[in-house]
Each structure stands twice: as structure tokens, then as C-alpha cells.
């Protein structure tokens, strides 16, 4: 199976990645090679093997629901591209 230019454009859109038009053929070729390469997994008889998501298969720890972090908004917003009055600014989305 191989990915064509429109499939690459679709995936790039899903991932919100801007790709130069001129670079699409290269991506299509590289991604197709990678997908073809991992395709060999489809031939493996996995029967009813349980999927392994985490190497140690541990459960999640719980902690008491208490305040543990202090407010550091000013510190964190100091490295943001654009803020105002404690808010992150993005282009207008509602006219």
C-alpha cells in the first residue's frame, strides 16, 4: 500500500502540520516506505495476545485530592508568544 499526495495532505491536515506543496512528493515517498515497512506486522499471527501498553503493566497511583501546586501563572506566561490580562492571545475565532 502506498500513500499518494492527497493522503499526505489529509494526514498533514489531521496533524495540523503545514507542508510546502513542493515537499509533498518527498513526504509521500518516505511515508509510503515507512508504512510499507511496518506493514510486515500484518503477517504476524498474534492470535488473542493481549496488547501491551506499558512495559511494567502497573496501575495508576492515587493521591489525596489536595492543593499541591502554587499559582505560577506569571512565570509561565512570561514565555508565551502573546498574553494579555492573564490570558493567552490567539487570532480572533468569533466575529
Amino acid at each position, binding site marked *: 500500500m502506498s500513500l499518494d499526495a492527497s493522503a499526505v495532505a489529509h494526514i*498533514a491536515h489531521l*496533524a495540523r502540520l503545514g507542508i510546502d506543496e513542493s515537499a509533498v512528493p518527498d513526504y509521500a515517498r518516505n511515508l509510503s516506505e515507512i508504512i510499507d515497512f511496518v506493514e510486515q506486522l500484518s503477517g504476524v499471527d498474534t492470535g488473542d495476545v493481549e496488547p501491551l501498553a506499558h512495559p511494567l503493566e502497573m496501575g495508576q497511583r492515587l493521591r489525596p485530592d489536595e492543593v499541591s501546586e502554587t499559582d505560577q501563572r506569571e512565570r509561565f506566561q512570561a514565555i508565551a508568544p502573546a498574553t494579555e490580562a492573564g490570558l493567552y492571545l490567539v487570532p480572533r475565532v468569533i466575529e
Partner: protein
Amino acid sequence: MHEYSITELAAGLERGDFTSRELTGHYLERIRRHDGTLNSFISVTEEAALARAEAADARRARGEAGPLTGVPIAHKDIFCTDGVRTSCGSRMLDNFIAPYDAHVVERLDEAGAVMLGKTNMDEFAMGSSNETSFYGPVSNPWDTAAVPGGSSGGSAAAVAARLTPAATGTDTGGSIRQPASMCGISGLKPTYGRVSRYGMVAFASSLDQGGPMARSAEDLAVLLGAMAGFDHRDSTSVQREVPDYRATLGDDIRGLRIGLPAEYFGEGLDAGVRAAIDEAVAALRAEGAEITEVSLPNTHLAVPVYYVIAPAEASSNLSRFDGVRFGYRCEDPRGLEDLYTRSRGEGFGDEVKRRIMVGTYALSAGYYDAYYLKAQQVRRMIRDDFTRAFEDVDVILGPVAPTPAFDIGEKADDPVQMYLSDIYTLAVNLAGLPGLSVPAGFANGRPVGMQLIGNYFDEARLLNVGHRFQQATDWHTRAPGDFA
């Protein structure tokens, strides 16, 4: 001074042979002199380093020194360092001044280590050659036409060239062990969960693990002792006592059962690498180890499994880089969609974009079962191979990589060929096991590393075997001629 081990440096500082201020100044001078050739550092924090060195000297004068007090170290630029740029080798984070320290950085600070700077790396740790860095490729100190390996290529090159006695690295599919092997140094990827991932920029969260890089197993033991331990801020951090890794370094290895997986010595293995590993096996046999063959029958599936799971996790992790809260933002966005799309398109390099797209594809509607779920099933089969092998042996031994370092540019245009250079290291991450790389000779004048794989939380045994090997051989003491 730059030929001393960490233990020797600590002893020298304690005796007053030199101060940390002098030692740190010496390493900073070496970085100035040599790093123009290597490009192993992204940032050198000279002023802060000298201030910290003075503080370490004061701490020692008060009689409060630990094993790392005043010893210089470099951090891979994937670890957040409060007030210092943490770029992760990417244009996306070129302007990112971390507002907090990673747990590993905190721990090493508390132990008194002195940070010299931040080392170069493949962008977001995605690479096996350090060629995907936004800050340019790193050269291998043994041959500047060769790659240093990756993704912790800057750390490996800096340690090999004696620009720092120690460095941190991270290993998602071999990124500590493979560059350690290619640069002729020692590197340890601990058991998943042994070292906290807090403040370590995430690539593939079920595989990522931080660890130490240095010249000897003995140095790694000191470093791991400082880095390891429980951290409530990492949900997969393991609550388990940290042993004294130094205490067992010299233990006898007579009767130790070492397994050689047939699958790690087959087609594709360079003859020179094979010869070096054979010789290393003979050295361990002479130490009294019992050598047997084991089988890891699903080894050939590790690369395809990894290249589904790692990109899938990466595509999710890297969705946080959106040009809104921190990092790169494109000029004059025409709307929110344009802001996301162009910030990410311009901020990420090609390999990162490729992996995000592979992961997005593997997780997309209609393909999830065929790729992601299937890969997780095979992941268990790979893990079970190791579980079975460890019923019969204590340690598994093989090469780290099928070839010594390749030339810069040689594989840059062929992602699948590049991925295959991690064929012996990826399975260890998929299983979550610890793996050690130690220098074991040369092939075509470039270093070769031997890999020792241990059972879960068996780092002490790996370091013990590595140390005994380094007592019997001197590969780890060799320095690249131009940087002696």
C-alpha cells in the same frame, strides 16, 4: 585533569589537589577550544557554571560534600533547566527558557554536580545520527566525518572528547546506548520507571527513559545513584529503593550466566563489530562467566513495532506545540487554524513531521486496529521473549549496533535504513528493560560498543559486569587522538 574518572575527580577535590572552580574552568576552556569542531553543545552556561563551582567548593569546605560535589556535568538539551534555554534540538523550542528544572537536573544539582551547559541532540530525540538537530549535526570525535550516533549524540561526543566527565541522556529506542557505542564511551538506559521523566520533553512516553553517560561503568554507578529514585510528579515513576550501585561493582562474576541471542549475530552484522564482540565475550568467559545461546525469536519485529508505537505516542505528545502557550509562533497568523498549521509546519523539522504523520496515520479512524493495536500485541510477544530468556540466563549480551558510526549524510535521505541501525536496541525499550553499552574495541578505526541487557531493575548487575569487563580490558580508557 580531564583524564580523571568521577571517583578520581571527587578524591582530587577532597584532597585539595584542585578546586571545582579550577576544574570547571579547565573544562570550559576545553569546550571553547574544541567544540567549534564538534558542535556537541547547544548552550554553554559559563557564568552559572563558575558560580556553581564556587558554591560547590564552599560546600566542600563546610564538610558537606557528596560523591558529585564540584564535578562538572552536561545535560542533554531535552531536560528542562530553570532559566536556561531548553531547545530539544528544535526551532520549535529555540526561544523556550524552561520555567522549572527536570527531576534529574534537580537530583544532580542536589548532589553538587556543576552544569557546564546543554548538549546537542536529534530534534525531539528523533534520530540515530544527530543530523536532525536544528543546530546542525555533531561530529564524532574519533573521525569528524562520522556521525556520533543519536539521539544523545552531543552528550556522547562531549564525553568522548573529554569536554565533560559526564552527561545525561535519554533513550527511547537506543538513544543513550547507540551514541555511547559509536563514540567509545559507556552509557546506561535504566529500567523504565527507574529515573523520573518529570521535566524531560516527552517523545514516546511508554518508552522514554533518562540515564547517565560517562567513560566507565564505575562512573555510571555514581551518576545513576544520584539520578534514580521515586518522583510523585511522574505517574510511571517506580517506588522502589535505589541500591548502592558502587557497592557491588567489583563482585565476582564466576558462574554468571550470559546469554547470546542468535538473532543479534545474524545477517547485517558488520564483521569487524562481530569480531570485537566475540573478543569481549572471550574476556568475560575468562572472568568465569558461563556463556550460552538464547533465542529472542521476535527480534526482527522490533523495528516495525517501534515505528508504529513511538510515532503514535509522539504524534499525541507533540500536539502540545501549538504556538499558543510557549515555543515558536508563526508571523501574522490569519486565523487559529493558520496559527496551528504554520507554527507547527515552520517549527518542526522534516523527521519530526514525518513521525508525527506516521503516528497520526496509525491512530486514525479505520487504521487503529491494523497498526497500533497490532503493534501492541507484538510488543507483548517481544517482551515475553525476554521473560523466557531470563529464566535461563542472568544477562543478555550482544552488539549495540550492527555497524560502527557511519558517515555524516550517508543515511540522511533514507529513513528506513536509518531506523534499522537501532535493530538491537529498540526491543529493550519495548520491554522496558535496562541496557548498558560499554566500549569493546574498534572496527575500521571507529568504536564498537557491547550491549548488556538485564532483567527489570537489575542495573547493579549490569554495572558489575561492565566494571569487571573494564577491569580486564582498557577500551574505555582510549581517547580520540585529536582531543587528548
